[in-house]
């Protein structure tokens, strides 16, 4: 009797637990992201002080490792005497909220446009491709700066503006993924048995592009966090007294030659979070890529 060759798994989520655990980058990224998320969620329990409480008599106290520092304020105090560690912890909330919020808005817009363009092709594809080209021709930071300068910065405005500006990568990837899938046999079969377009899109197309969607989403979360930091650094992002990491860098900038920790601490936090999200995204791409499935 001839042994039949083993068929590949039909599981659209083939990333095995072992493969994930072997991916060092992904593991490191995941651990840092989980750590920051825990900080954000548990901020009221972990933060040693009220991040908004000002003590003007205790301004610019250095961190504990400096000879002038104390354990009362482990990471020191800012220019208004607010506890830097508490602001850093609460700042994680803002960064993640903006990153995830903006990525969700842009993900919905980009995925809708990309899947429509890829599935229907023709004029729909032309229109969407034109929209993507228009969007790509606009410098994101400049447009965001202009909009926020006109309407004023706030958490909601920053999320909305970034969400409306970062959908292009979703649209491009979703379009090309859908283009590849739409001529597959199972899509033709679904059409042949009379499935509606909506059903085909939701049950046949989406599950097969969702891996790409997640990878792009992680990259865009990191992108949005960096952009928020840039806007806040320029004074046009999250408004005080909300503790944003970009705002903390901006507020510490004037003293960077004298108290470098003021910008180093939020800068390192920002670097670590963005790096870890990117590592996580890269790892997810690697473990879900077709070449790793067998």
């Amino acid at each position, binding site marked *: 009797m001839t042994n039949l060759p083993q068929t590949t798994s039909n599981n659209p989520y083939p990333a095995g637990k072992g493969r994930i655990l072997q991916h060092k980058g992904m593991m490191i990224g995941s651990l840092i992201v989980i750590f920051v998320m825990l900080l954000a969620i548990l901020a009221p329990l972990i933060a040693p002080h009220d991040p908004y409480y*000002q003590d003007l008599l205790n*301004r610019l106290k250095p961190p504990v490792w400096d000879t002038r520092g104390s354990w009362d304020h482990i990471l020191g105090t800012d*220019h208004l005497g607010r506890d830097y560690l508490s602001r850093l912890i609460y700042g994680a909330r803002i960064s993640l909220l903006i990153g995830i919020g903006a990525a969700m808005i842009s993900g919905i817009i980009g995925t809708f446009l990309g899947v429509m363009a890829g599935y229907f092709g023709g004029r729909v594809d032309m229109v969407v491709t034109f929209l993507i080209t228009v969007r790509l021709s606009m410098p994101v930071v400049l447009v965001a700066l202009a909009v926020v300068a006109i309407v*004023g*910065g706030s958490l909601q405005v920053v999320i909305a503006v970034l969400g409306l500006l970062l959908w292009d990568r979703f649209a491009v990837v979703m379009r090309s993924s859908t283009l590849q899938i739409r001529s597959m046999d199972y899509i033709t079969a679904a059409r042949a048995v009379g499935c509606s377009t909506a059903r085909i899109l939701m049950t046949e197309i989406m599950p097969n592009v969702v891996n790409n969607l997640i990878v792009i989403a992680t990259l865009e979360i990191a992108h949005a966090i960096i952009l928020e930091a840039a806007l806040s650094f320029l004074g046009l992002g999250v408004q*005080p007294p909300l503790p944003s990491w970009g705002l903390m860098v901006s507020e510490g900038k*004037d*003293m960077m*030659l004298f108290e470098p920790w003021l910008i180093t601490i939020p800068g390192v936090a920002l670097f670590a979070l963005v790096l870890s999200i990117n590592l996580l995204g890269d790892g997810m791409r690697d473990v879900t890529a077709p070449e790793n499935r067998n």
Partner: protein
Amino acid sequence: MMTNKTISFSLIGALAATMMYSAAYADKSNDTLNIAVDRELESIDNYYNTAREGIVISRMIWDGLLYRDPATNEYIPNLATSYKWVDSKTLQFDLRSDVSFHNGEKFDADDVVFTMNYLADPANGAKPARNVNWWTNAEKLGDYKVQLNLKTEFPAALEFLSGPVVMYPNEYYGKVGPEGMALNPVGTGPYMVTSVEPGKRYRFTKYDGYHSSSPKGRASIGKIVIRTIAESNTQLAELFSGGIDWIWKVKPDQAQRIQEQGNFTVKNSSTMRIGYLNFDASGRYGENPMNDVRVRKAIAHSINRDGIVQALVKGESIVVNSLCFPSQFGCTQDVPTYDYNPEKAKELLRDAGYPDGFEIPFLAYRNRDYAEAMISNLNAIGITTKFTYLKYAAFRDKVQDGDSPFNFGTWGSYSINDVSAITSHFQKGGKDDYSRDAEVMKNLNIGDTSVDLDVRKDAYKKALSRIADQVFMFPLWSYNTNYAFTKDLDFDPTPDEIPRFFTATWK
């Protein structure tokens, strides 16, 4: 482990090492003073820029008919030898006959008549308009005698003639116009311009022919180079490395650290700029808690002005109770005052029907830290703010469009030492006026148009007292400027925030 100090010096060293500067190192040995400013001038022509740096440079290149002594605030003839009020709308000047412009052109009545009539013509677009829109024309009464005809009574005329209104050479300016003057300025001032790199670098040399009778005095330092360096940390790095030897607008915390280092002289001077809170008392924004005087008084009692001045503003700044800078003519601090008293503030809020406070939009455009400190004070009495920090132009437009019930602003009065430059600007029915109070406007009108000093003072006092009593605007504190410079330099700042480099000397 590296100490904090080591890290700081490493950072400074690294920054300094990457600096590219073609200018010669500044020191007294080559008699060159290198100065950094943070703003690019749109034009060096005195009448086509509004930046403070332009005012500073203007005082170096040009002279006015009069000069205000910054120590005594007395108006002293400069290009004029004497002046007299013929009536409340007519001024006559006798001019000096021994003055020459930098290009050799003799100064006489024709230059004054040309300059004043050129500026009076709105078609020429001299700015800011308020500096030049108060006279009708100038007439030549002799080679060295002119008459200035005012549109209406304008008591602040002497202040303007001793500051922003400077005299141009009629023949040269008539030939080259604003463009030529911007590239090759010619005046009668203590310094002449040797090169202009627009927006980047200006070089000056002491004018040896400067008239000895000038109250400004002859310049001592031979050469001055003014460079634009926009970023404050880069300015500091250049100062530390010796590329620059005079900077200003140094932040209070930076100034304190520089002083602690002991390598540079740090001086502080109060300026005419004051901070204020502006409330929508008259309902321009619509119905809101600021319409109620008890709420405005509650806010006045909630702000810890002394604490903020001591911790953040620092320097020579003082708390001000009246909507003007104390040295300005007509300014009095003898008005109703509001001490820091959160309990009283809460009581007033309760009386006004806001026992649990309220939320209100709050705008600011500068000093975000001061704004945040005030927000914290307001939170303490139950008022929460929807805070928006805008660029100045956006802030100004929003406020002037009536779209702000509550904002934190500042006003420098263009260094005009007269109450009309601030109180009348904000409270005489203009775009920034949110109270539109008939009594205040009536008194300001009297003060702005009378040439009787006592009448003016009395009218301004009534207006300022009413503003304070009704808290139409709440004055906060005066501002100050920190100057940091090489220890080789002897330099004294002045309260009008106009550094006079012609009075500086090498030690």
